[in-house]
């Protein structure tokens, strides 16, 4: 199942920030991680991922640098900035509240309060 574009626009950046909060990652690695860890729900191709990464970079939530990998090829690694960490924290709280709200009205299943 794939998310509609509007939902992806809201969820995608938070998901990417969350993945980068664990360790730095390069583009293909992010695509794979999103597809596997979300069972394809947040899977995204180059056309979605790279513009999103450039936007996050422009907002100074992530930063990137080119480095040689173990296989000898250059890769661009992305990592979270301090500003990105704060943004992720705020986004997660917002998603929590959204989740609770969705549960409260029965859109999502969850433990009763």
């Amino acid at each position: 199942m794939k998310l509609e574009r509007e939902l992806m626009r809201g969820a995608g950046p938070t998901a990417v920030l969350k993945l980068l909060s664990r360790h730095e990652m390069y583009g293909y690695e992010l695509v794979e991680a999103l597809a596997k860890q979300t069972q394809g729900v947040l899977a995204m191709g180059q056309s979605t991922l790279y513009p999103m990464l450039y936007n996050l970079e422009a907002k100074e939530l992530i930063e990137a640098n080119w480095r040689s990998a173990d296989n000898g090829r250059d890769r661009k690694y992305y990592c979270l900035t301090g500003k990105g960490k704060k943004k992720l924290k705020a986004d997660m709280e917002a998603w929590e509240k959204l989740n609770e709200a969705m549960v409260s009205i029965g859109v999502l299943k969850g433990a009763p309060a």
Partner: protein
Amino acid sequence: MSGSTLSKAWRWSVVRSPLLNLWRRVRYMGYPNHAAFDLLDEAALPDEVDALIRTTLKRSKLWANERAEIARELIAHTQDAIEAGRSGEEIASTFGDPKRIAKLMRRSMKRKRPLYWRAYRNMKRATGVLILVLIVGYSSLAVRFYMGKPAIKRNYIAELNARNDGYSEDEKAWGVYQEADIAWQRLVLEQWYQYRAQEDGGEQGQAKLSRNTFLNQISSSINEYQPGDPEYLRTVGLVRDFAPELVKIREAAQRPIVGILYTDRNESMEIEDGVFELKLLEPNGDPRAQDLLISVLLPDLQITRRYANLLSFDAKLAIEDGDMQRATENYLAIAGIARQNLSQGLMISELTGMSILDLGASSFRQSILEQPDIWSSDQLVSIAHAYAQAGREINLDLSFERMAFDDVLQRLYTDDGAGNGRLTPQGSVLLSSKLMSMTIRGQSEDQVDDRIQRAMDPLKIIGAESREQQRRRYHSAMDAAQRVIREGPKSLWRLQLIESQIEGRYARADESLFGHSPADVMTPAIRSAVNRYFQGRLTNSAFLTMLAIEIYQRDHGQLPESLDQLVPKYLPSVPQDPFNPGFPLQYVVDETGYMVYTAGGDGDLDGGVQIDPEVDRRNFRSLSRRFSFEIELGEDGVPSIVRDGNGRPILLEPDAPDSDWVLIDMRRTPESPAAD
């Protein structure tokens, strides 16, 4: 205009503009734009992926370094995918639409661009929007401006002519005056032929005058010639030949009105060689086809002024002839012509009337000074009545000026039905061409180019004052003039202030893109006119006082000791001097005669002493020094009267000559003809 249309217009004008695109191509010429494609060549990716990336990069239209950055990242991504066992087809299938990805890449990469670039882009966009707003705004104003048409509804020329309704042709003098003018032209022409036929010796070798110059000189200088001048004898001949016409003029001068047809249409016909008849044609019944009211023809002014001169000259001849009846009738006729001009209600006619009245009074006074006993009491009384009647018509009602301005407004502005409106294209042209050339202030050399003014015309809808504001401004100036007439010369400062406000606005308007406002262009020299009104009434009062003194003298065999002795039999009261409130006309008598005078420019009495009669006469004729104050401009550009520490206005010329204004001087010096 819908949002999408605006968006298209914006894209065309700024983003897709052919000129801007050409500029971009020129700007990036020679830049290593192939770097991204070199990377792709080197990477040797599967063809389908390579093609998608190339298409994306081309469509992104980003800077070369940005494209290289994207190419490098997409190559790395593809190589990682191949390493993970993906085929070229699989990778291409997840790539997405190159057109869409190029758009997203371009948008996101631009967000990463440096601050100066974004500032430049925003400035460019803002400028574009501003230009667009200005173009749209100017265009809508231009449409509104060029669609405006003046609503010319009132026929002011007909309204002016209606003043003469109710008078029969026998009560109008114009027909007689015009016929006499033709006779005068014939006589002068005959004189000119004789003059031209003369040997050069007569003019002391000077070049002969042209016919028109000869005619104008004779008409304007009649009273300046003195016995002994060659021109004097010629003038005597002319005036005697003109006697039959003068009889008719004297009769016509007693009619109630001049009764000229006010019109903008005329025909000048040469009825015989060198003799012209001006035919005044009925004005067009449709005011839209008429000229401005202010352009109506007033040939009567020049003609009546000439007749006053001829009558004055003939009065002197009549006295020489011993024909006192004719002399009296001549002076009565001068007063009648003055009265007819004064009662017309046009400022220019009233000023002419005052001038004619002064001419008659001055000439008559001179006749008494030269020959004290030639006039009988009855003749003096009839003269006094005629000059008193004419003097009562000195009122400067300004009604014509108000009508003329309202007529201008209806030709310049639209009419919203409630007295307001906006300037029209025809109005703008009329204002900057015809009206400006007619104004007393004239056209300045500094004025903004006419073509620029035309281009600025649509902005006048929002930037220039409305019809109602103009109407209020003009009429409030006229109201102020009439208030000063009621209050007296002490309030002349009000008009000084208004005129300096007009002068200030006028000077600024010379350099303004909005040009001059109609009210400022059309406001006449009201301070000077109102001052002239006070002077006209004062000189008339002084002349009537002189006549009363002369009648008293004939009745009592001696001059009165004071003017109070004249009241009430010879004068209803001693006339007041409007320039010096509280001081009636002054009178001094001695063995040489008497004088009637006022406290003068300095406002105190000096027993009729004149320091410099020539200077005093000039001061009296121009503006009263006592009521001209210093004016200063405030920070807001509004002028105000400068006051001293005690709150008193500071006079413009505080050191006015310490002398009185002698209005009637009947002292006979040993040199005067009467003493011979």
